[in-house]
């Protein structure tokens, strides 16, 4: 009797986890969303990715669908910014995206206006200066242990 109760509990938990995992973010989505399965709103948001949609992995598609779901809740300025950057972001290599995420998370405590100023200043540097900085950063990264944010498992 206890065994049966245990199995039933397991079954209920499994069903809950499976169902909740598929409807985790906002709205239920297919496990491998094809372009035709997207809503009109999602298609409109992800229009720049339509051509490459077939080449994206299941995880990448799922992530983009989740991102499209967040899009509607963003302010107008952020929407425009996101749309204009989406295509370039998708074209970055997996490793570049991983580095970008790690660097973004590390710089979360820096105010946006300071980051903008720094970016403008950085663009004024010569290619040689930039290369020296990149080499120095690469040297420092070599000695660092992988962390949660820069681990190779963060591939999407």
């Amino acid at each position, binding site marked *: 009797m206890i065994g049966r109760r245990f199995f039933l509990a397991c079954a209920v938990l499994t069903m809950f986890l499976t169902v909740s995992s598929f409807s*985790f973010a906002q709205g239920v989505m297919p496990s491998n969303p094809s372009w035709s399965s997207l809503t009109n709103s999602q298609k409109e948001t992800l229009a720049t990715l339509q051509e490459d949609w077939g080449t994206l992995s299941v995880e990448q598609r799922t992530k983009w669908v989740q991102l499209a779901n967040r899009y509607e809740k963003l302010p107008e300025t952020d929407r425009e910014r996101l749309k204009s950057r989406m295509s370039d972001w998708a074209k970055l290599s997996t490793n570049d995206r991983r580095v*970008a995420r790690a660097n973004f998370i590390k710089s979360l405590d820096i105010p946006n206006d300071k980051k903008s100023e720094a970016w403008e200043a950085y663009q004024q540097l010569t290619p040689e200066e930039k290369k020296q900085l990149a080499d120095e950063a690469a040297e420092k990264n070599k000695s660092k242990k992988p962390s949660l944010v820069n681990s190779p498992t963060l591939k999407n």
Partner: protein
Amino acid sequence: MNASHTNITLINSSVGNPLTSDDLYVDQIGKTISRSLDKELGHLSPKVLQRLEKSREIALSLQKNKSSSASQQNSSKFGFLPKLGPLSPILFVLLLVFGIAQWQQNARINHIADVDTAILTDSVPPDAYADDGFRLFLKKMMTPSDTKPQIESMKIEESSSSAPQENIPANLENRAPDISTNP
């Protein structure tokens, strides 16, 4: 004591004495029938024996059907469990692991979607974050130093500088403006 009393009563009843109670009367009848049946058991005709055997088989088959339908009813409560037999615990553990893995995978994708949304709507373009050099530059700018030149002065210095390029990185830290407002 009771048995002997019953026997005495029976003997008495056979000679016409009144019975002491109804129960005793029924009991007496049963015993009499049983005794006569036992006595006639050896003299049963083959036809009667055959009928008895047939009746027994019918009774047994009815009993068997009843018990099997009862067990089916019992198993229908848990449907698939008895069919799987000893594999059911393994299957459930596998299902559980699959469910947890799915949940973790979706949680991870959800987290990445959050980060990507923030990066794509940030004040700085994503290319900047993909550049480890910029990250180091930003870090140096945010690090308080003794000399605190402004960004403008650095730009002027860069544009008018004729110094050899190999000296620049060594001076970058000092040249980088301190725009830190964080502790």
